[in-house]
């Protein structure tokens, strides 16, 4: 009796199990894109371009960490781009009066505070994440213009460049930061009580609450992290450019959401991983980089990227329905 009450379906073979993991299939896609681009452009696989790719992944990669947390709970954060812009201006203004470390701390705290407001409105008052973060997106951008006086802040101390241009063990500090951040986020989501609660909230909030999990706190936390990471990301941007522009971060939310979704997360929550998101980020950056190398006009790049994302997900949907059958 024990066996026939256990199973409805036969267990999958090990190979099938691996193929069933979306991240694995997306990793294959990333490799295909890399090989394709290296055939199209001989420059693509050079050492300097690879460092260039990693460097370009940092800003979007950091934002995508917070976005992964939010999407895992079944939410969405459209405000990251404008929060990045606003906190960038806050950082630029703070740097006029304060040393680097407290200035960055203020900017990151401001990002987290904005996330706390969004998360509370969404979780406690039951407003739709899409609408709340859309509103915050408009407010954030508008405040960025007002605080900056509509002009870029360009007298950023040169010392900020150390954040990006220091090499540790031969790896640029910003790339190292990205990799450590992904490792930490992965460990938190996999081993910490909070991480598992975030998955449970996105998968079945009612069951999670009935099992005694603190669903309110862990539904708000991802928005706080998302806002804070937007500020961290813009800090790296500003360190490279030595300028804070109120327009910074424009459209960043779309790149971040696309990266998370390409990485296999479900917009309904409960499914997704840091590894998948990292691959998603690389896919996005590689496509952009490859199109630049091939000299595709920037005006055509949006069309190309949009088409590739949709095609990738369409193929994925068709393949996955075949595998899981």
């Amino acid at each position: 009796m024990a066996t026939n009450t256990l199973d409805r379906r036969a267990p999958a073979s090990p190979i099938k199990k691996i193929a069933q993991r979306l991240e694995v299939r997306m990793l294959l896609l990333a490799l295909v894109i890399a090989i394709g681009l290296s055939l199209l452009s001989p420059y693509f696989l050079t050492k300097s371009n690879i460092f260039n790719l990693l460097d370009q992944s940092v800003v979007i990669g950091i934002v995508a960490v917070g976005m992964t947390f939010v999407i895992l709970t079944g939410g969405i954060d459209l405000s990251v781009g404008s929060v990045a812009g606003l906190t960038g201006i806050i950082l630029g203004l703070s740097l006029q009066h304060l040393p680097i470390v407290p200035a960055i701390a203020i900017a990151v705290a401001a990002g987290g505070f904005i996330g706390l407001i969004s998360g509370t409105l969404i979780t406690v008052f039951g407003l739709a994440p899409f609408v709340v973060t859309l509103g915050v997106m408009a407010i954030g951008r508008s405040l960025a213009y007002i605080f900056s006086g509509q002009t870029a802040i360009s007298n950023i101390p040169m010392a900020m460049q150390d954040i990006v241009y220091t090499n540790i063990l031969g790896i640029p500090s910003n790339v190292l930061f990205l990799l450590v951040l992904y490792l930490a986020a992965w460990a938190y989501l996999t081993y910490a009580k909070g991480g598992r609660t975030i998955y449970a909230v996105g998968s079945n909030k009612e069951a999670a609450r009935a099992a005694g999990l603190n669903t309110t706190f862990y539904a708000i936390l991802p928005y706080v992290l998302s806002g804070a990471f937007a500020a961290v990301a813009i800090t790296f941007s500003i360190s490279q450019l030595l300028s804070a522009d109120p327009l910074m971060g424009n459209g960043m939310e779309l790149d971040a959401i696309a990266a998370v979704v390409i990485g296999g997360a479900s917009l309904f929550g409960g499914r997704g991983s840091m590894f998948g998101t990292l691959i998603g980020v690389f896919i996005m950056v590689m496509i952009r980089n490859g199109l630049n190398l091939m000299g595709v006009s920037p005006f055509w790049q949006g069309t190309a990227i949009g088409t590739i994302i949709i095609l990738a997900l369409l193929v994925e949907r068709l393949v996955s329905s075949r595998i899981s059958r």
Partner: protein
Amino acid sequence: MQSNLAPVAEAEFSPLLVAKGITKTFDRTRALQGADFELREGEIHGLLGANGAGKSTLSKVISGHYTLDSGDLSYRGHEIRLRSTRDALRIGIAIVMQETSLVPDLTVLENIFLPELGRPGRLDYSRLRQRGQEILNDLGQGDSLPFDWEVRRLSSAQKQLVEIAKALGVRAKLLIFDEPTASLSPGEAERLFDIMARLRDTGHGLVFVSHRLEEVFAITDRVTVLREGRTVMNARETASLSQADLIRAMVGAELGAIYERKESHTQQNHAAVALEVRNLSSTPAVRDVSFAVRKGEILGIGGLVGAGRSETVEAIFGLRPRSGGEVILNGKKLGADSPKTAIRAGLGFVAEDRRTQNIVPDLSVKENLLLAHLGAHRGFFCSYASREKKVKELLGKLGMPEERLADSSMLNFSGGMQQKIIIARWLLLEPNVLILDEPTKGVDIGTRASIYAMLRDIAAQGVALVVVSSDFEELLGLSDRVVVMSDGRTTADLPSAMLDEESLTLLAAPRTSMVRNTEMLNELARAHGGSGFWALLEHDRLICLNAVVSNPALDPGFKAGEARELSATRIPEALRLREPIFVPEPDGSRTTLVVPMTSPRGHDLGWVGLSLPTDRPLPAPETIKSRIDTMAATL
């Protein structure tokens, strides 16, 4: 439509709808297995049955929500095949459900004529308004609906009226009312019955699906009873039936077979009280619930669908806000703020719906098993390893190989195994009290037995169990004691050895009259210093519906829910004679007046009795009798 009417043989009783041998199976459950039903023009036909008997399924087959598997359905003498509710509506069959088919943001008028909105061409609002007014006038409700209001602003009774008007807007001839009085006040229900009577008089055929026996007697002409998906009483005249006849047909047990349960779990339990609930309320579903459960005891909570059982246990566990009363766990008051508080205080809860309330589909089997641990755990990491030993032990009991823990989804397991894993989720925490809401719902018969064994085993280890179940057989077989709920109140609390399915059904039936009856019994008993009761009498047996004892010396020898041979009570003489005077018992202990209670339509609502001491002047029997009659007349 008028042209092809079948030749009318009996002008008065032409059958409107005939269903023969209807079967319908969902997944593995056979909801209907050969149901027959016949409805005439100009009648109100009661459709009755216990929980899960197939009433709703049959209603939905007739109204086109479900397609039947086999069987014949004929309407006005023509065989019909319904593929959708639109098919049914087109030929004139409509179902009035609880607010489900209305669009809250459209106006009353637009909702009544919703089918017209789907037609091509322009809408003539003034013509629609005129037709809507005619329909309401025909129902005698000319001015009770504001046509221009959005439906969301209406009361439930008004919404129901919109549903009825909508059905008449497409000229429906057959209307099905599925538990229409569930959310109505007594006055509103009265008005609904008035509307139903008018529809009957204008030649419509009405099906009235209800748990409420008093209403069935008040409004229906004929009654059909379903049991386990079959018709067991086919279209009997309501006037020829008694409450006991209906209950017997619904339950299927032989009346008079008062069997003593001789099982080990009938012995008295003197362990400490683990959980006590006092006058709990959580509006609107839970009004006044009190019970207590001891360590090692299995307490069943019985009642019909909609009695407020799930809401009660959710309010205890902190999933639902309370509006009054208190919950005491292990001698300490338990707050209502969140499940986490309840869990840390030693309570566990297996919710009713596995898929939406218990299983987290994207977590592995292991994490689902450890979910309550995660909720109760204080610390940054998960600390799954700390429970490893206990997990192994539980898996052994469940008969599940350890490697299956790594499975990525619970959903590949059978319903029974899923349920065992959910129960094990709570056992890991070693709770003092475990509440289970419908623990065998969607579980196949074979696995049920092993779940029962598991629950008995848990109780034997000293855990207090509270089991909510709609399956009365399961409730009686599993529980040491049963608390019956009806309309959000506890109506009885008895050892299961003293109950059978029949008396349980009687106690669970929602009674509009129960509140007022209890008030009256209380007043009578107090005013005269005696004891009062309300009971059904049949042959030489009594089933007590309610008893109020203000003087312990005058205890009649039975409590609410108990069934007794007349000779086994303490007032056999009065019950045997049933005279309209006070009858003294031969032992001289008391004298008792027993008065029949009759509904306005002449139906037996049972007997009301008042026992008084013999050493005092007695009140005039007529004044008490008229008091009872006055109350019965307003029911």
